[in-house]
């Protein structure tokens, strides 16, 4: 489904390479986790995949279901089903959370040549999904992420994901800053979306989340490269021993 091939990325503004040949394939129906030290390039990878400006792709390719997506605008990638839950969700003052969701959903539908969702269908859907994430109606009316607590912002990302029903979900540290209960809500939200047609790329620092979301594959990223891939046991190894052994092994 998502095929990343020898991806090299440097910053547009300075001559600095951040991703130094990433190879990664996420098949439909699987959950992949990426772990790795701070500054290793995990968020950069998620931004480049979703089309943020400011990066130069100097080599390699990314395919989503066979289409090369690197020349597409962010919204075109979104319409193809690529979703990024942000490490730091953005605040948009004055724009109601529901308005935002509805605008996004309809934009994607329109891009795919589908009809807009009716106001009543939308309301029903958003209330239902919000309830499972314990997001109350007040939060739905408030401006997007403005004044939300850290945990609320993360749950809100999962609500957006649930509404947009993407094909490939990239979660960048969605577990960071969550209390135990919120973590379960988020994990349940992700698990509810797991199906054979959908792939996940979950960036995290902690085993905790992976207890709830059982990954099929775990990758370790360091200095802009995947240095090791394995099963869930790899995450446990990191949890117990940190990265130093893995880094030594790789060099």
């Amino acid at each position, binding site marked *: 489904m998502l095929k990343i091939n020898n991806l090299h990325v440097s910053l547009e503004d300075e001559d600095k390479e951040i991703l130094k040949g990433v190879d990664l394939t996420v098949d439909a129906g699987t959950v992949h986790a990426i772990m790795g030290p701070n500054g290793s390039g995990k968020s950069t990878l998620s931004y480049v995949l979703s089309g*943020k*400006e400011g990066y130069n792709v100097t080599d390699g390719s990314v395919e989503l279901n066979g289409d090369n997506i690197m020349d597409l605008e*962010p*919204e075109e990638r979104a319409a193809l089903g690529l979703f990024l839950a942000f490490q730091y969700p953005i605040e*948009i003052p*004055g*724009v109601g959370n529901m308005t935002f969701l509805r*605008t996004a959903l309809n*934009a994607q539908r329109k891009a795919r040549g589908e009809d807009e969702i009716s106001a009543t269908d939308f309301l029903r859907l958003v209330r239902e999904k919000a309830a499972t994430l314990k997001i109350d109606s007040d939060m739905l009316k408030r401006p997007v992420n403005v004044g939300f607590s850290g945990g609320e912002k993360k749950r809100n990302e999962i609500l957006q994901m649930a509404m947009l029903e993407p094909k490939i979900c990239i979660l960048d540290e969605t577990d960071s800053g969550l209390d135990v209960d919120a973590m379960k809500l988020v994990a349940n939200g992700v698990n509810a979306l797991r199906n054979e047609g959908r792939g996940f790329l979950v960036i995290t620092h902690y085993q905790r989340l992976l207890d709830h979301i059982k990954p099929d594959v775990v990758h370790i990223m360091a200095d802009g490269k995947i240095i090791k891939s394995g099963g869930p046991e790899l995450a446990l190894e990191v949890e117990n021993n940190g990265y130093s052994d893995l880094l030594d092994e790789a060099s």
Partner: protein
Amino acid sequence: MEAGDTLQVKDGVDQETIDAVKEVSTYKYGWDTDIEMEYAPKGVNEDIVKLISEKNSEPEWMTSWRLEALERWKKMTEPKWAMVDYPEIDFQDQYYYARPKSMVEKPKSLDEVDPKLLATYEKLGIPLKEQMILAGVEGAADKPDGERKVAVDAVFDSVSVGTTFKSELKKAGVIFCSISEAIKEHPDLVKKYLGSVVPVSDNFYATLNSAVFSDGSFVYIPPGVKCPMELSTYFRINAENTGQFERTLIIADKGSYVSYLEGCTAPKRDTAQLHAAVVEIVVEEDAEVKYSTVQNWFPGDENGNGGIYNFVTKRADCRGDRAKVMWTQVETGSAVTWKYPSCILRGDESQGEFYSIAIANNHQQADTGTKMLHLGKNTKSRIVSKGISAGVAQNTYRGQVNMHPRAKNSRNYTQCDSLLIGDKCGAHTVPYIEVKNNSSRVEHEATTSKVDDDQLFYCRQRGMGEEEAVALVVNGFCKDVLQALPMEFAMEAQQLVAISLEGSVG
């Protein structure tokens, strides 16, 4: 030159204009109506003023009022203090009067109006049939009958085409008609109030307007009456090289209430056109007036050709105690905007509010704001201004707050936010504050920000196109003002914000 029968019919619209109109444009009201017009000869002088007065079959007192204004105007010069820059206007190279030929014999009812004119308003989404509702109002069809009624006075170039719901309003004692009709039918009211809020000699454009105004709306709400529906005037400039000089007079007598909406559009033309309006509002004791404008005159093309020069004087006089007035404006059109809707807070405990969204894109220049003149005790005013600049546009907020010695314990709060899209545009804030007593308080907050790339990326990651994302973020920025608009206009205004920013990114 002789007045009277010297009206000349201008030749059909030339090919160049037709082509200009056809050009792809984001301005969706840029088409024109091909209709036979009669014009007064170009220029402004005593004969023209007399001619306009005669065309409107005005009484003599009105003609001399106009002629006095003309005499004063001749001695005045254009104000230059605003931050707008435009080529010298040749005031003698304009038409000051243009009316559809079919309006020469004034139709007795809307049924008799030329179908071409009616079609024009239909195309603009303005309901001239009483069973119709304003287009674009979400959920309007679900509302029970009567709740969403809006009475419309439709002004086409220099004349009012017709006014809806007149008889229903009359039952409530409300007078809503064109000003030319009011001059004939209600001379006492007009004599008493015309020029009492904006004096003839107020400023260059207001004085010119006093001499040559051709039509506009008149509203009188009797004591204690809550106007049973929204009133609105829709101004359409159609003719080329023709200025529109409308005059609106609203009187809210003691304890009455009215909400009034104003909308305006014009065809896309290569040459700039002049629009100089005067709006006067009288608010008596315990009365309340809400005045909302969606100004969408043709802004000129991407290269700064054409567009409306919009020089407008709007003022409300809260004469009685506890009188309230609220101006809400969405200014998206015009090449040049010079406009400062003001409140004179004369009555004790009277209140003035000003909510403004001003968008300047491409080569547009906007210099707009308000004046709050606190004269009475315990008066309050609130100013919320949202200025958005894109392209190479310049956007200036100019506001004045005056607390007079007698205006004890008065309050003003001003919030003035500017948003920049791109780095070739400018935003300027020019507040004048004068407090002449020590019990009053004035608060002023101002911010300037840029549309944030992270916000746009976030929206786009969720599937919105770049322009849709900008529109969403900007609508969020304007929310406080959009909320102040009546529902009829809020939707339209939101869409307008989106349309007027097209092409501002990328």
